[in-house]
């Protein structure tokens, strides 16, 4: 439990830091790195980074949109199209972040396992 929680926090912080100077895939990189150095067991290797990524993208995008009264988010909800529903844009966006982090988290763990086995 502690490892799960610490991984969650570590991925979120690292991803937020890397995003300052790297493109969107900095989230995948952060999740990969944390999962590599701190291997999680079973399905947690997916869900923990998924939660971290989804949470980070959700909170960050919510803060940006909320500060501007969702002017653009409402328009993007028409563009994509998501029935003009800004909440759906937030949901889709955070799921995409979650999946990106989750999948690279699993990959990070598998890399570690492969290396460990070779030793």
């Amino acid at each position, binding site marked *: 439990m502690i490892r799960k929680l610490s991984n969650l926090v570590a991925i979120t912080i690292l991803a937020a830091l890397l995003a300052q100077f790297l493109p969107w895939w900095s989230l995948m990189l952060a999740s990969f790195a944390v999962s590599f150095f701190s291997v999680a067991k079973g399905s947690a290797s997916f869900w923990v980074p998924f939660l971290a990524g989804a949470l980070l993208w959700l909170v960050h995008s919510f803060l940006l949109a909320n500060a501007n009264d969702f002017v653009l988010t409402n328009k993007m909800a028409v563009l994509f199209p998501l029935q003009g529903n800004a909440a759906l844009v937030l949901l889709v966006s955070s799921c995409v972040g979650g999946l990106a982090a989750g999948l690279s988290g699993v*990959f990070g763990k598998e890399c570690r396992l492969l290396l460990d086995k070779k030793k």
Partner: protein
Amino acid sequence: MEIRKILISFKLCEITLFANLHTNQNLQHLRRFMNRFTFLRSLFLAALFFYLLNNPIGKLPPLGKILSPSEGFWQNEKDEITTGTLELEGLKEPVKIHYDAQLVPHVFAQNDLDLYFAQGHVTAKHRLWQMEFQTHAAAGRLSEIFGKKALEHDRMQRRKGMVFGAENTLKDMAADAETIALLDAYTQGINSYINSLEQADYPVEYKLLNYAPEAWTPLKTSLLLMYMTDMLCGGDADLEYTNALRLFGKKRFDAWYPDFFDTLDPVVPKETSWKHISSTMTAVPNQQTPLDIIAETFEKPHPNNGSNNWAISAEKSYSGNPILANDPHLGLNLPSIWFVMQLATPKHSSYGATLPGALGIISGFNKHIAWGETNATRDVKDWYKIQFQDASKSTYRYEGTWNTARIRVEEIKIKGQASFLDSVRYTHHGPVSYDASFKGRHGKQGYAMKWVGHLGGNGQRTFLELNRGKNYEDYLAALQHWVAPAQNFVFAAADGDIALWVQGDFANKWKGQGKFLMDGSLAANDWQAYIPKSDNAFSKNPKRGFVSSANQYPTDQSYPYYVFNDGYESYRNRIINTFLSSKNKLDLEDFKSLQNNNFNLKASELLPTMLAEINRGALNTKELHMLELLASWNYDNGMNALAPSLWTEWWNHLYKLTWDEFEQKDVALKKPFTYQTIYLLKNKPNDTYADIVATTTVETAKDLFLISFQSAMSVFDTWDAKSSYKWSKYKGTAARHLLQGLPAFSRFDIPIGGEENSPNAVTHDHGPSWRMIVEMSSPPKALGIYPGGQSGNPGSVYYDNFIDTWAAEDYFEALFMQSTTDTKHIRSTQTLNPKS
């Protein structure tokens, strides 16, 4: 699908492996194998997902890029209120940018170089995507963004010689040391902004279309000017008229397309004397119009592109100060074509509407003078039939010999594909736009274009000089640089002068020249000379106490140079002049109400005849009721009225039915103008045009009124409630995003009245794109509004916040700051410092 198949095959592998597990004794070995397998699977999934998010899929932009909060569209959730300090290379001294409540930037620089540097920087900050997109569109480079579907557009732009014209303009700007220095500073300013951008900062359109801004160049400013030139004087109907002449004969052609209409209220008052003109008029040569069958021509600029402007003298003004008004009518797009600014140095300070991409204020004022433009429609584009010697199209017939054609190879880059190379032949006339390879003649023939748009000229200098102008002499000097698009430049000065010049380069044509296709092998058909600028029509301090223009005839028939009707507007000018003449004194409220005037003069001139002539006996109760509704109409196209919708539908049906002989396949035609159509319906009701070709009976105007009324009113049967055919609903005015009207970034159903021929010329997609009223008090007082907003960012509340004010016939008061410390109404300030 592919992805799902791969995933399923992974799953099958897994199952087979597990099944084998029990039979295989070497568990250790198998586990290693399994690990490797799950490793590969995780690698595959992570890589696949990365690929999908990093690349556009179908119509979707790269989802990872666009949805990431740190670099995606979330970063564009900004109102663009700007503060802080920047250090920029290229500046000489500090510049202050004060933003008011409308997000209008007030730029205060210490010198002209810094001023235009800052104009470039600030414009790019709010309008970068639009600036680049419009110049890409002008240059025929949209295929680079959209791929092959834009190729036809790009070829058309290249074959019109848009880049050729822009290069010529740049040459003339570069020949003037001051212009090029200021243009370079402007360019540097834009690039100082572009270079500061990361992916996260790009305007959202770049993110959606997955491309990046490129560096600005002086040529791009030139291309923006060409974009306007093409929009305002790129239209003509020579080839359509040639078809009409062939199909209908000279007699009917002349009756349908007269050089002058019977009613005339020209830009320059009728009583003006032309005695000062001493040039020789060009003699009519002996030549024959080639009566070719022309199937297809270029897409034309919007027929409603036009404008109103007027100015009243001190004597006619309520306050004793001259007052000037201008409202250019253009396509209603977002981001708006205009960007309002104040541009100030210690030596001069001007306020008004700028065009993102060009230097200075285009329609505005300083403390001495005010200026504005309307389009001075004139036939400035002609077509010449070219006979090439052979299929190589390297030489063409001219005066009995073969002239060499220059070949300009246009490389059109296409996203995701190899470039398209288009070899365009240039004759001494201009580019051979239509030939065997494009919309054109077979084999060895082609049509070459002669257009003032290719002449170059330093029109940019006109605006630089107007911005710092102090009086009529400065205005006149500024206008001498103007070549195209010809404009009616209205002028008012604090010292009391008002004036209006119809300015531009016009060919001194022989009577009839350029109305139809001409034989390009005869020197006599070439443009022989240009009208000296001093002979252009103008009006200064006329007796009537006002000057005005609304795209009508520049002069009456007494003007010695050849002018014929090439799409002159015939209604707005008369409403405006009648209004301005109707009062001895006018105030700002009068000006507002005239700019927002919805009177339908066109309907008032035909509807009484239609109502009197229509056979009421043939109508049912419902139709009679609608006829009554029309009979009680006051000809005001107010947004809530029902009658304008009925009238418009009836008129459209009538016009189509009247000119049914024009409904021909594979022949490019232009139907006669509204004014002449109404003239014929009223004065020649039994003429052959009224006969419906498809029937065996002979119809007259009276029959057309009835048939068109019944078909038009049936349209309203399907409308559920009266409220749905209220004029504004029926019209459905919208301001559409430049990107093919992207609905998410557009505004629909704007509640506004007016119609194409009323001063408030708002149609469904077109209208007054900037309304300005300036009183030349000390300092000047000004009102402005446009259907958009200062920010080009759809994420900003300033993207479209002016639209409702504009629709409500309201304005904002221009804040004309008298000094950089006069910051009482300033919301935020940004400082641009030279980089040390």
